[in-house]
């Protein structure tokens, strides 16, 4: 009983805080794939840029809350420009799956090196804006992690409402379902594509800001993190929002709880093993695709 209260429960709560951040990353990936059919290999770099933008804003004297509010807007701008100036150019070719994957891979390489050039390769620390801990059931939980969980969950719900319950979301889903038909109904499809990409990038950015006080900030911080997000998206089903949320929370819990029994070093191989098993059983992932289901 003590074990559950003092070992397992904190681990679950810590896992949940990381979990919502992973879900935000995975949502960005899965929405971009669901609508544009683009595997965004630069997603981990956009996550890192989100954290660095926050670092820069904090350095300019803004509070963490301003940084948290402004970063998604700046990231959306970066995403929009990237889509319009680069991805749009190869988007209409026959090989677009491979070409967009390669292109975003190239963009990731350049962005990572730009981060090294501007901020240096050494890790930076970001002070958590909320200190202290809250007592629940005789246990102390760090307030900042609780805040990350709460805000992350609200954003996830907001994304779901936006995609499935608003006319804007309907437009996006229509563009994913039948591009030509949607265009002929007067929807500016190309702008919808760019805006969707920008939205996904903004989600990666938010994830970067939220985790900056928990982990340290360094140029390659996105590499390992994006691998988890990719596993989540593959297991949940590419393009599925529901899949990303369920698989994201499930996988981070498995990773978090398993680290009590096995060395954390084996966390990634474990996740990957699960991914392989799921793919052998259901090659399309657990859930269907955005706009197609």
């Amino acid at each position, binding site marked *: 009983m003590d074990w559950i209260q003092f070992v397992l429960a904190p681990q679950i709560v810590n896992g949940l805080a990381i979990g919502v951040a992973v879900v935000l990353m995975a949502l960005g990936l899965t929405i971009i*794939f669901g609508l544009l059919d683009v*595997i965004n290999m630069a997603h981990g770099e956009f996550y890192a840029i989100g954290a660095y933008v926050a670092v820069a804003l904090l350095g300019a004297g803004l509070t963490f809350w301003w940084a948290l509010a402004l970063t998604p807007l700046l990231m959306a701008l970066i995403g929009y420009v990237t889509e319009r100036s*680069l991805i749009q*150019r*190869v988007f209409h*070719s026959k*090989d677009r*799956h*491979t*070409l967009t*994957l*390669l*292109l975003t*891979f*190239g*963009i990731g*390489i*350049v962005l*990572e*090196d*730009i981060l*090294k*050039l501007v901020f240096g390769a050494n890790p930076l620390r970001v002070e958590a804006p909320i200190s202290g801990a809250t007592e629940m059931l005789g246990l102390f939980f760090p307030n900042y992690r609780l805040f990350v969980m709460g805000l992350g969950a609200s954003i996830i719900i907001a994304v779901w409402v936006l995609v499935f319950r608003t006319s804007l979301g309907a437009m996006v889903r229509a563009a994913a379902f039948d591009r030509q038909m949607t265009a002929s109904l007067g929807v500016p499809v190309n702008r919808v594509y760019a805006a969707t990409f920008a939205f996904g990038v903004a989600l990666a950015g938010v994830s970067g800001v939220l985790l900056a006080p928990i982990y340290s900030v360094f140029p390659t911080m996105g*590499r390992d993190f994006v*691998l988890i997000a*990719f*596993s989540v998206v*593959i297991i949940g089903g*590419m393009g599925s929002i529901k899949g990303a949320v369920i698989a994201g929370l499930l996988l981070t819990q498995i990773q978090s709880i398993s680290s009590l029994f096995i*060395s954390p*070093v084996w966390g*990634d*191989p474990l996740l*990957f093993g699960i*991914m*392989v098993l799921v*793919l*052998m059983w259901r*090659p399309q992932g657990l859930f269907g695709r955005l706009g197609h289901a």
Partner: protein
Amino acid sequence: MHEVTSRSLGHPARALHWLAGLFFGLALVFAIVAWTVGDVFFFRLGTEALIFAGLALSVDLLLGRTGLLPLGQALFFGMGAYVSALVLKNWSSSFWIAIAVALVFSAITGLIGGLIAIRSKGVYFALISFGLAQVVSKIIFNTRELGASDGMIGVPVAQIAPGLESGQPAGFFLVVLSILFILYAGLAYLMETPFGRQLGAVRTNEQRLSFLGVDPWRTKLAAFVGAACIAGVSGALYPMLRGFVSPELMFFQVSGNAVINVIVGGTGTLIGPVYGSALLTVLRSVVGSYTAHHQIVIGILFILVVIVLPRGLIGLAAPALQERLGRREGAVRTPILHAEHPQ
């Protein structure tokens, strides 16, 4: 004959053969010049470029033929390097034994990896091959017996023949060049066999291939194992050149660079990736001596090629060269080629 050849390659075949001859000829000229002036640095750099050209060939076999994009080919490259280093350190100093053991190991891991990765298509395949390499490199990174994050240093030189060992810059360069030539010529020949056509058919239309009574799964698995073997042999040469191995050899950087070399050189041309590796390895070294941020230069070059030249540098050079070769031979064959390759 040539008409059929050029159709199957999707590129003017004679120009590609000519460019391949040019590459190996230039490499020999380089060897003579460097040997005359007694150079060591450029021999080492050139040998490294050739080793990575082998890795690029294995990527092109998958990407250019079957249309499967491998993002984790460094897995087999690193596997070959580690196996070769272990053999040289603990068992035998024979070059041939190290290569043979590395080959067997790459074939086995290629088969296991293939059984996992071939189930998936398109972007799923790319991500799974990426994940496979990531996981294995993490395991190696954390295994103390394999030197963990430091890798293994002090790999002894390999004895290739009496009086010839991997420590000799010129001799080893020529050995690696010969191996690369055998790999290239073998692949170029294989592409003209029925099996080579099947590979192309997997890319074009997998379903129709199965209507012809050919199992696309088996074809893809064979290509995957073959590519793993080529990457493994290339990797086995690495510790002989540098005297060490490290987990970085399996990291995404290496897989990614191989893909970049293939795309910049020209996907599906076999000789393009060889040119790409040679050019970019030298470029990385030259730019790297001025700035630590050479990845920006490589990355921007790569982005430009993907957007502007999807067929790579060879895709740009080969059609023009083919026209010249055709003109020299007389006007009889040219119109047929033009009909098949509207420029």
